[in-house]
């Protein structure tokens, strides 16, 4: 959910800082209200940006991870939220504490459940608006412009890179074990699966240290840290469009704030 996908939309071209402002606003607003209607409005904005920027939906992630989590959250809220207006109820033995002999779905629980699910989707889907539409270099650059030391920003992005190399390594070792007749990865039980993966971790970690060391040599050989004033080929600059989007983001946020915090009804 963080990989960059190339594209040519306004969102892709925006200054990353504007995107960070936009997504941070959406993120914060989502925590300032519990009203399902307002949250739906925010999610609609997020979804519109996703569709407009053609950010690819990872079916695997949404179907297998996010939706089960959302359902679970919803059920917990629905059944355990201390509400008063009972919609449906089931009798349960009274010796189970807390429930008082009844498992009930309340109206407050329903509303709160919906809110929580909406909020979950907003929170999860807000970050990709920045990461999946921005090249790592541009992101790094704007983080530096926002005050993060270059060395730190570079280390962060390089670590992400190293992780993907190690992931490829793990896949290699798994393939190597499979073609030597190992069946552990096809086993069903979770314990057996863990047992299969554990022995891989040590050699891959060793490989990781070695690669990191060699990378350090290569990076320093290319004059890393030579000068405090580092030029950057990609210049992140605020264009007219960026200012306009930023203006709308800020005014939109302020107007929403006024509505959300209940100054106007």
């Amino acid at each position: 959910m963080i990989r960059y996908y190339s594209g040519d939309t306004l969102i892709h071209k925006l200054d990353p800082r504007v995107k960070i402002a936009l997504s941070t606003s959406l993120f914060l607003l989502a925590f300032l209200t519990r009203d399902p209607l307002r949250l739906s409005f925010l999610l609609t904005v997020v979804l519109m940006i996703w569709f407009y920027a053609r950010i690819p939906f990872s079916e695997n992630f949404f179907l297998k991870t996010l939706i089960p989590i959302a359902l679970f959250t919803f059920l917990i809220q629905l059944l355990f939220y201390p509400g008063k207006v009972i919609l449906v109820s089931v009798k349960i033995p009274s010796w189970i504490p807390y429930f008082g002999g009844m498992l009930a779905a309340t109206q407050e629980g329903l509303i709160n459940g919906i809110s929580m699910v909406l909020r979950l989707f907003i929170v999860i889907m807000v970050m990709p608006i920045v990461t999946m539409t921005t090249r790592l270099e541009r992101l790094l650059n704007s983080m530096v412009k926002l005050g993060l030391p270059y060395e730190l920003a570079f280390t962060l992005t390089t670590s992400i890179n190293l992780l993907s190399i190690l992931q490829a390594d793990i896949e290699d070792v798994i393939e190597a074990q499979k073609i030597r007749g190992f069946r552990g990865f096809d086993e069903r039980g979770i314990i057996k699966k863990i047992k299969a993966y554990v022995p891989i971790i040590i050699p891959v970690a060793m490989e990781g240290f070695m690669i990191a060391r060699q990378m350090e040599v290569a990076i320093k050989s290319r004059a890393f840290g030579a000068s405090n004033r580092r030029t950057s080929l990609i210049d992140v600059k605020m264009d007219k469009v960026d200012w306009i989007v930023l203006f709308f983001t800020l005014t939109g946020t302020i107007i929403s704030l006024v509505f959300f915090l209940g100054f106007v009804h």
Partner: protein
Amino acid sequence: MRDVVKIENLSYFYPYSEVAVLDHINLSIKEGEIVVLTGPTGSGKTTLCLTLNGVIPHILGGKLDGRVLVDGMDVLEHDVAELSTKVGIVFQSPDVQLFSSSVISEIAFGPENLAIPREEIRERVSWAMELTGLKGYEERSPAKLSDGEKRKVAIASILAMRPKIIVLDEPTTGLDSIEAKRVISLIESLRNKYRTTFLIVEHREHILRLADRILLMVDGKILGECKPRDLFDDEKLMNSAYIRVPEVVKLFHLLRKEGIYRGRIPLTVEEALPVISRVPIAPSTVKSCNAPKDPRANEELIRMERVSCGYGKQEVIKEVNVKINKGEFLALVGRNGAGKTTLAKCMVGLIKPSNGRILLQGRDIRDMNIADISPIISYIFQNPERQFFSMSVEEEVSFGPRNLGLSEEEINERVEESLRSVNLIHLKEKHPRSLSRGQMQRLAIAIALAMRPQAIILDEPMTGQDEASLRSIEMILRKLREEGKTILLITHEMGLVSRLADRVIALANGRIVFDGPTRKFFWDERAVIEAGIGFPPLVQLLRNLPDPSRFEGIVTAEEFIEAIRGRGK
């Protein structure tokens, strides 16, 4: 001309080590010179290179005695960043030196660090891309490029820093012959146009030929130096320096021994042409070499019918039909990215075909688990060292047989036997990743043998090996061939193909462009061009002689000599 590199009495010890990796080295390199450093692996060549930009000792530590001067700067007194404008190193493994998300930012990284004005960086980047033929790759992600392309990006990223001296560590390893030629002409044009100085670690002849001087390094010492011409003129010297004798050079040495030729040994096909046309070869009496090697059993092992496969939606292999019989020795050739590895992985079940079917001894592999395939075909990955995971050589080899559920006794027997056949039994207690590259490749073969498979697929086993290991791996392959094992060899080494393989399958863009006897392949102009591998130099030479058809089928120097010996018989 002034010296841009001056090394005086240099000795070096890695941290916590008493062994001198570099032992009293003295070396001067003049501006614009191309110096090639050769010698067996572990002789300290790469270590020597790393002293030039101060990585040794500034980053890797250790104890350094003596002096290294680069363009007048003492490396001990300047840090790596300062020295990077003088010396650029292109490392052996392309993966560790590419860490950006686009080609353009990768190349710009060095100049950016040097705080060069943006406009100039832009110029430098486009200049470097132009020279390396990377135009159009600007926004591609380096991690997703082919090996050859990665190597070009690595070179371009060094060029953009405009160093006076460029160090290349085995720059053509793993490249097909066309990519390798590009690297070679790049080196030549940089030297001629910009007087760039080169120090190149390499043992393959196409690079050695470029050298103004060749240095032989063994056990941390420079044993001697010579000109390429003198090296190739002296068979003993080539052997003791662990250098493969190029086929054309070998031909003239053989002609010399036969008493047919007396002059100097030509180094290239162009040089050899006028010379060979003066060698008396009676045109009508050349013995035909077209007799096939020993016929083998016609028992089918693998059959692929209209197989397409690839990664995700991208189809790499397109409608391939192959039939492989037991006991065949096949070479799978083609350019980088032609689909050789994909085809091999498809055969062992690592990649599922999207179309068509694969039969293994008559069984559809769709009904088989990878583990069921493993005792029938063993696949040896390219870069096997990345796939070892055990604590000892012995354990590593026993992993496969153990998965087959064999008895402890049988497992031990197989481990012993396979380690013996690759001559590694004395190292069975060692950690697999502590072995040398050559030993690792042999270990990979032992792992495959321990499964006692019908067929073995070797994916570029010769990549990155020094001459001594090349010879021992070739011997092992020869032995397996005699034992009647079915072998599928993926390689760029056409010399090896011509010496070992009975049959060649050539792939280009995922399709088979040739499938037939080896000697026919190298003489089939259309096939060789379509496969994009380039004619082996010897064949190229013979094809340029008058009436070349009389040599058809000859692929090695020995065969040529045998053919002309046939005179008068």
